[in-house]
């Protein structure tokens, strides 16, 4: 089994818009196909996961996607209720109605509570051995550090109480590099790469979670090698252009448009390569960097997830 799929808990994160959800959905799909009982959870319940799998809503209680795959959305309030019921054994949950209503504010007021209910629930699934792998479509760059750092923070803030007693085993799971890993998704662009590099550093310094790999998503294919590019440049010169246009019985302008389009593709790719080189240079050399291709065909929904899963599987085997 590829190393990445041998983890038990994977937090997939990255700047908004880089394809975090698709990558998380693909990792989960791949793992489930390899027989791992897999749970995939979206932390920000926007319905992205449901869109990725083209299924109905993915509630907190989970929706079965396929034999080994269940998808859910985080709901910290439901997580608290479950926690109270299952772990803290607080009875008659109905009587704490006001708590439920005021929950958002408690969670806001008591820093780290929402985060720990999120991370705690996910770790709990691992601890209870209900799944072999939990893939988390985690918050984007800005918030994920807070989430993963919450258990440590809680330990410092809360000195007694049930929460305190729970953080120890949560921290043990989070801090175990053979069980838990972070996956940073980025694209070959300036800001996503910058954020990925910053995030890698912050994960290391502020959280117990180890960086499993970095995924460069939407990498454009290489059009030409160097010598081919020289030929291409030659084609774009007016004399050759005339020739091409005459052969194709069309206007110079049209041929020029086609060549310009190819030039755009070359330029876009080259800009991307520069960012990827920076990424490689600034991420610790022992962290694997996986490349996923840009999907020219319909780039969303289940088909995209399958394509990304296939590409990922090839990357993992090389």
């Amino acid at each position: 089994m590829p190393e990445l799929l041998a983890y038990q808990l994977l937090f997939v994160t990255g700047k908004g818009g880089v394809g975090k959800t698709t990558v998380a959905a693909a990792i989960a799909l791949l793992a489930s196909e390899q027989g791992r009982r897999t749970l995939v959870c979206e932390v920000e319940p926007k319905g992205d996961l449901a869109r990725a799998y083209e299924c109905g809503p993915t509630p907190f209680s989970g929706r079965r996607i396929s034999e080994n795959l269940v998808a859910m959305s985080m709901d910290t309030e439901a997580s608290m209720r479950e926690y109270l019921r299952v772990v803290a054994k607080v009875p008659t949950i109905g009587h704490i109605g006001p708590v439920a209503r005021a929950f958002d504010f408690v969670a806001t007021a008591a820093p780290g509570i929402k985060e720990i209910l999120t991370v705690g629930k996910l770790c709990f699934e691992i601890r209870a051995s209900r799944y072999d792998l939990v893939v988390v479509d985690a918050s984007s760059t800005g918030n994920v550090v807070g989430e993963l750092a919450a258990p440590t923070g809680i330990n410092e803030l809360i000195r007694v109480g049930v929460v305190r007693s729970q953080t120890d085993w949560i921290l043990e799971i989070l801090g175990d590099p053979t069980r838990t890993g972070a996956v940073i998704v980025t694209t070959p662009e300036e800001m996503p790469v910058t954020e990925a590099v910053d995030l890698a550093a912050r994960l290391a310094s502020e959280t117990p979670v180890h960086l499993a790999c970095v995924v460069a998503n939407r990498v454009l294919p290489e059009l030409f090698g160097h010598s081919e590019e020289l030929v291409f440049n030659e084609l774009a010169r007016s004399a050759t252009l005339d020739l091409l246009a005459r052969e194709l019985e069309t206007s110079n302008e049209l041929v020029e448009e086609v060549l310009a389009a190819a030039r755009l593709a070359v330029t876009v790719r080259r800009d991307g390569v520069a960012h990827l080189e920076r990424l490689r240079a600034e991420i610790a050399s022992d962290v694997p960097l996986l490349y996923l291709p840009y999907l020219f065909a319909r780039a969303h929904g289940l088909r995209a997830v399958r394509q990304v899963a296939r590409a990922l599987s090839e990357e993992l085997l090389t």
Partner: protein
Amino acid sequence: MSRPERRLESRPESRPIPGRAGASVEQEQTRHLEQLLSAKEVVVVCGPGGVGKTTISASLAATAAARLGGRVLVLTVDPARRLADALGIGGLGNVARRVPDEAFAVAGVRPTGELYAAMLDMSESWDALVRRHAPDLGTANEILANPLYRNLTRRFAQGHDYIAMERLYELHEQGEYDLLVVDTPPSLNALDLLDAPGRMAEFFSSRLLRWLIVPYRSRLVNFASRPFYQVADRILGSQFLEDLAEFFILFQTMRDGFVARSEAVNRLIRDVRTTFVVVTTLEAVPAVDAEQLIESLRDRRLHLGLLVCNKVLPGSFSDAPVGRTAELLGQRAGELANSLADRVPVEPATESRPSGEMIGRVLAEVARSFANFRLVATREAELLRELSAAHEVTATVPYHPGHVTDLHGLLDVGAKIWGDEVAVATEKAGFRGARPSRGSRGPGRGSPSGTSRGRVAGASTEDRKHQSDKPESGGGS
């Protein structure tokens, strides 16, 4: 890169507007934008993550300063370093800095107004808020030193939304600027941004806050809050609850100020002088998010001034004759390569002629890449059609390789949003291989290029001569 001066064929606005003879869509768009930015004092730029909100915000502000005049401030959240440097705000916090006229001069523009830029520093803004609303300096310092406060302001993601709106309000109140353009932080949910001020007021009035505070003062716990304490005690521990209560007692001293302020911020968002600009790319997920955002603006009766579709592939990809040429090129690559092989000049570097085989490979690759991008462009065109139907004023900004790294690039993007596709000298902005525009082939371009250029305060060398032609509307005074 070529930037065909042309819109996507399928774009509905590319047709002349019925009942307005002579006005092209582009002219109409320019007029709309100039009116919008002259009439409004606050522009809130929002949209899904990763679509280029910051660049669009800066472009709108820079272009408004250049063309419409007045004092324009762009408040950005987290600009890429190079953009921050370009605006002269690198490493700066909340303090607004004027973007020097020299920066415009380098871009070949003499602005009619002044451009300022500031970054939104979250914790600094929170601190300023506390200092303003705390009853005295001692209380302010106590709050600022409280570890829970630090935690709260750093982690409270919704707080960021509030702070963005609150800073906007403050700047508007100060009245130093004619136009404020605010780039919003990426929200979990677009509604968060719109509802943040309301929620802040609600928070301070909430029963919860009273509950947290009461038992600390007296041990009297009323019937309604008792279960809360039982559970909270059990989960959090009473020590933590006491810490929390202490913090909120301090915080409570700022209540009236905060509530009044949030209500005022709320009013500003709903004010007729405020407009929203939604930015998206034409990819499936961001487009859905943008659509939801537009809907929620509509539900709240907030003013949607403009929808910007960013990073749109050039129109040539969906141009049928160009597409046919690419197909032909691919089909006949081998044959074309043979007839070209002995006529391509000798490569000086290798002192040899490329083989027919290699030329064929290059041609085939060119055709294949065109087909790939055409697929994406077609999808984009459809999304654009759907989004434009949802809102009548839609601007498209073509894909720009590299990043917009200077004022020149920002003004170029601004020209695209304005709808007058001015040929700005493009090398600097990272556009490569720009060619003279072929306006004659563009559909629906009503105006002779001369007239539309005269209006524009930033353009290529020959356009600079028209600098004396001031923009028609003197903005935001």
